[in-house]
């Protein structure tokens, strides 16, 4: 439960920040390939033991490194000169994400006797965490979210456009870099202990933006709360649906509920309302 809360909180806040700084409603750790990058790092960390470094450290560390790497790969693929094409950003995010996901599947396939664990983790699961893991996730998520919240006003300005933000005194390049690092950190923390959980980072910010407006000073804390609550609720649903089947991976439930809502959002956007 506690792990689920921090995982959801992290994904929610990271999604809100990405949608804001890329000014794109589709941006999220999942769509931009960050989750896949982090999960490849985590999978490598789980399968190959690095001497002298405990897996509690090596798994999140590798997840973070791969996550940041993916972020910059996707970002630089979509950059022409100093301008970033938002269409290309999404497309390269999806392409790179698919490639990395395939590598994770390949690793899973080759994992042999540890197959079952990896498969289960890969579908997103918040069960079976011990307290040291929970503490680590909590610390990383809280730290990353704090960094993002301390830039809430700058993020607001960047939502108006990079030129506007610069004119309001924001050092856009540095701020964006800091925010991308912070969201990578939070995503990596969430993924390496809970696997790839889609749609939380996409949908929670959208719902809350409709409810409380786009001001990140209130939106970001609410996304933490909302994301955390959403995961716990999905976990509850998972327990109710399948009391006898063992625990259903939570990634399945978040997508089962989240995907239809996402489709609804797409339809609504077509009718020309802002977000």
């Amino acid at each position, binding site marked *: 439960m506690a792990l689920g809360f921090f995982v959801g909180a992290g994904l929610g806040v990271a999604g809100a920040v990405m949608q804001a700084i890329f000014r794109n409603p589709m941006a999220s750790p999942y769509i931009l390939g960050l989750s896949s990058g982090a999960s490849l790092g985590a999978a490598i960390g789980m399968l190959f033991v690095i001497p002298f470094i405990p897996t509690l450290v090596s798994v999140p560390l590798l997840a973070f490194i791969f996550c940041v790497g993916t972020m910059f790969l996707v970002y630089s693929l979509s950059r022409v000169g100093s301008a970033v094409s938002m269409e290309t950003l999404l497309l390269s995010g999806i392409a790179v994400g698919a490639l990395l996901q395939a590598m994770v599947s390949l690793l899973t396939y080759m994992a042999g006797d540890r197959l079952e664990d990896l498969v289960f983790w890969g579908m997103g699961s918040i069960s079976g965490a011990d307290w040291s893991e929970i503490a680590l996730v909590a610390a990383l998520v809280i730290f990353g979210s704090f960094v993002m919240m301390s830039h809430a006003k700058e993020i607001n*300005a960047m939502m108006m456009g990079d*030129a506007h933000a610069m004119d309001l005194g924001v050092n856009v390049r540095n701020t964006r870099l800091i925010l991308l690092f912070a969201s990578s950190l939070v995503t990596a923390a969430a993924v390496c202990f809970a696997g790839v959980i889609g749609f939380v980072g996409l949908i929670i910010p959208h719902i809350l933006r409709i409810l409380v407006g786009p001001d990140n000073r209130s939106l970001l804390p609410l996304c933490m709360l909302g994301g955390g609550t959403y995961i716990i609720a999905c976990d509850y649903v998972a327990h109710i649906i399948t009391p006898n089947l063992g625990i259903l991976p939570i990634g399945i439930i978040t997508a089962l509920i989240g995907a239809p809502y996402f489709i609804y959002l797409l339809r609504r956007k077509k009718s020309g309302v802002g977000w």
Partner: protein
Amino acid sequence: MMDIKNLSFDYRDKIVLDQIDFSIKDGEILGILGPNGCGKTTLLGNLNRNLRPKIGCVLMGEKDLEDLKKKEIAREIAVIPQTNEVRFSFTVKEVVAMGRMPFQDSFAGESGRDLEIIENAMDRVGISEFTERFINTMSGGERQRVIIARALAQTPKILLMDEPTLHLDISAQFDVLNLIHDLSRKEKLTVVIVSHDLPMAARYCDRVMLIHNHRIHALGKTEDVLTPENMRTVFNVEADLVKDSKTGRNLVRLFDSCTNSEKST
């Protein structure tokens, strides 16, 4: 107010601005005019350090912009950027409140003084009636007013405007520039307008600067600079400037493009 000293700028060895040297005087409306692609928007970027000059410097009072933080610059210089399309549903008041950002710490909200300045800014541009409307549902002219109010909330000494009339209806163009003209006269606000809109610039600017081939072609009082020869060279149009008897303002009469008039003679 500001001195631009021997400023040159290039993008990957392509010269955009070449030895630009001029001063912006206190309380004036200065028009920087030139055809598209002449480097005028780049010049504007250099004036508030969104871009950094390759050679030369920009002085604000005694201080080199290079020695100031971006936040410090934003306390003195406000900008109305060319595009103001917003996809997020910020309210008018939230957008205007962003003008106080350069004065706030990261977690601080608006102080009583901030709120006073914000109200006052919305009042001066006449948007107090719709503070709770969403910016993404407004017309181009209304959005422009909101951004002007945001700029005023920065309590700037200098206002830079990039093509303020570009996306506006004719009547909205007059409204926005009348507003700016009033502010400049009543509050001694210094305004720099970058534009290729000759008639509007002639009407509202005290001085204009023409940029041609990345250099200053002419600089001075509007009626001295916008001569038929200068407009022909820089804009490739046959035009002249007269005092309009009805309004008493400068009126640019555009006759034809030079290309076409050469053909017909």
